C-alpha cells in the first residue's frame, strides 16, 4: 500500500483547494455479509436458536479521503469489487458511511441504471412525471420541461402509449432524457453511457458537455481506461476499498495497469 500519491493540478483556474464540491473525510463503509444466506424469518429463528447467525464484516471502503473540485471531471478506476460503485452511492446519498463524513455541495443527478423505475403499464407521459418525482422534481417543474424531455428522447409519437410497447432503446432514451432534463451541479455516472444508437449517444455526450461548460462537476466510474484518459482531469485509483493514488490520468492509468 506504499504507492506514491501523485497529485498535479491540471487546470489551476478551475481547481483550487477551496472549492471542493465533494468531500470525503476518512470514509469507511462496512457491509455485513451473512455467512449463510437467510431469506425467511422462520429460517432466521431456527438459526438463531441454533446460534448459527453469524455476520462477516466486509469493508467496501476503508478510510477514504477525497476532494473533488467544482467543474472538474473526476474519474474513478479500479477492478470489479474495488469499491467504485460504493463510492458513488456514498456521494449520491444512497448509503450513509459507516464511519467518516461526506459533504456534497450541490444537487446530484445520479445516472445509474436509467429507467429502473419505469412502470410498463403506464404511458410514457405518466412515467415522465413519476420518474421526475423520484428524482425530487415537482409536477410544475416537469410541466415546464415536458416538451423538451419528449423531444430529446425522440418519442413524441409514443408518448401516450403504454411503456410496454416501447423498445429497449426508447426506454433508455427516455430515462436519460428525464434524468438530465434539469441541470445538476454534480453528475454521477456509473460506467460510460451506452444509451441508444450512435446518434443518440452523441446527443448524450453533447448534453453532458454542456453541463460541464456551465460549471457542473462530473464524477465518473469506469473500467475503460481510454475513456478516463480522454475526458477526465483527475483520476483516483481504488483497490480493495483503499485509494491507491490520485492524480493526472496518464500517470494513474499507468500505475493501475502496472499491477
Amino acid at each position, binding site marked *: 500500500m506504499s504507492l506514491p500519491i501523485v497529485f498535479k493540478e491540471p487546470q489551476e483556474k478551475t481547481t483550487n483547494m477551496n472549492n471542493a464540491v465533494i468531500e470525503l473525510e476518512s470514509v469507511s463503509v462496512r457491509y455485513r455479509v451473512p455467512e449463510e444466506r437467510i431469506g425467511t424469518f422462520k429460517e432466521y429463528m431456527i438459526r438463531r436458536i441454533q446460534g448459527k447467525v453469524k455476520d462477516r464484516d466486509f469493508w467496501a471502503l476503508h478510510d477514504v479521503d477525497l476532494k473533488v473540485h*467544482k467543474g472538474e471531471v473526476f474519474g474513478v478506476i479500479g477492478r470489479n469489487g474495488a469499491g467504485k460503485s460504493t463510492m458513488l*452511492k456514498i456521494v449520491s446519498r444512497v*448509503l450513509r458511511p459507516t464511519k467518516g463524513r461526506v459533504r456534497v*455541495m450541490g444537487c446530484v443527478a445520479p445516472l445509474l441504471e436509467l429507467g429502473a423505475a419505469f412502470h410498463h403499464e403506464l404511458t410514457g407521459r405518466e412515467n415522465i412525471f413519476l420518474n421526475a*418525482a*423520484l428524482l425530487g*422534481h*415537482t409536477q410544475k417543474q416537469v410541466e415546464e420541461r415536458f416538451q423538451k424531455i419528449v423531444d430529446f428522447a425522440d418519442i413524441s409519437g409514443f408518448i401516450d402509449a403504454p411503456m410496454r410497447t416501447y423498445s429497449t432503446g426508447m426506454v433508455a432514451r427516455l430515462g436519460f432524457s428525464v434524468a438530465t432534463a434539469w*441541470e445538476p451541479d454534480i453528475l454521477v455516472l456509473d460506467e460510460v453511457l451506452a444509451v441508444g444508437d450512435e446518434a443518440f449517444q452523441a446527443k448524450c455526450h453533447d448534453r453532458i458537455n454542456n453541463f460541464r461548460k456551465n460549471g457542473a462537476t462530473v464524477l465518473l466510474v469506469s473500467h475503460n481506461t481510454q475513456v478516463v484518459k480522454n475526458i477526465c482531469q483527475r483520476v483516483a485509483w481504488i483497490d480493495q476499498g483503499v485509494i491507491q493514488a490520485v492524480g493526472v490520468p496518464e500517470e494513474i492509468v499507468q500505475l493501475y495497469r502496472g499491477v
Partner: protein
Amino acid sequence: MNKCSTLAIIARIDRIDTQYAKGPSSTCEGGIVKRMGKNVIEGLPIYDSGIQRSKAIEEVVEAYRYRHLIFQLVRRDVLTRYKRSILGVAWTMLNPLGMMLVLTIAFSQLFGGTRAYPAYVLTGLVAWNFFSQTTTASMNQMVWGGGLLGKIYIPRTVFVLSSIGTGLVNLTLSILPLIVVLLITGTPIRFSILFLPIPILSLVAFSLGVGLLLSTWAIYFYDVTEMYQIALMAWMYLTPIIYPEEIVPEAVRIWLFTLNPMYHLVSIFRAPLYNGALPEIHQLVGALGLSILVLAVGWILFARKSDEFAYRV
C-alpha cells in the same frame, strides 16, 4: 435558479466552513443556518453526512419535501390497478359490496337479530379493508421500492406513505356505495356522518404505524408478508366485523375486544354511520391515543433502521 433540489439542508453553523456560511441566501435561526435548496457557493444545496439530526425528524422533513413523489406513487397505484379492466374504478366500489352481499346471504339468518345487517357488515368491512390493504401494500411497496433505494436517494417512508394515500382514495370511493346501502337498509343518515374524518384519521395513524413496523421487518425476510396474511385473517375473525359483538360471551369480550385496537377503530368508524351517533368519548380518546402512539413508535423505529435498508436490498 429552479434547479433540482435533490438535497435538503439544515446545517449547524459551526459545522460548515465559514466560507459557505456567509452565503447571501442563508438565514440564521438560533445558530442554525437554513438554506433549503439554496446556494452554498452560489445557490447550491448541501448534503453533509456528519450532520445528524434526529433521524425521525429528518425523515418527516424529507418526506414532506418529496410530497410530489408520494402523489405520483398514489396516482400510479390507482391508475395501474384499473388500467386494463372494463369497469375501472368501479371495482373499488363493487369489491366491498360483493363481499357484503355474500356475507349477508350467508349470515343474515344466523345474525338475524342484528338491525340492518348489510349496513353493519359493510361499515365494518370498509374500515377493516382500509387497514388490511394499506398495511399489506406498505410491505409490498417497500419490497418493490427496495431496489430503487439502492440506486437513488429517496426518503424511505414514501412507499409506506403512498400506500396509505392509495388506501385513502379507495376508502373515499367506497363511502358512496356505503351511503346507498345505509339508505336502502333504512339506516338514517344523521349529521354524525360529518364526524367521520376523525375515525378515518385514527385509522390512518394506526395503519401507518403498523405498516412502517411491518415493512422494516419485511425488508429483511420475505416470508413476513405471508405470515402477516395469516395473522390478518385471524385478526379479522377476532374483531366483530361480520358478527355482532353481543354473540361473544361477556367474560371473553373484555379480553378479546378491549385489548384489540382494531375493535376500537372499527367501533368509532361504525358509530357515526351505522348508529348515527358520535362514538363514546372514552373509546374515541383511547383509539386516537393508541393510534398516535403506534404511529410514533413505528416512525421512530423505521427511521432508525432506514439507513441500513440500502445495504440490505
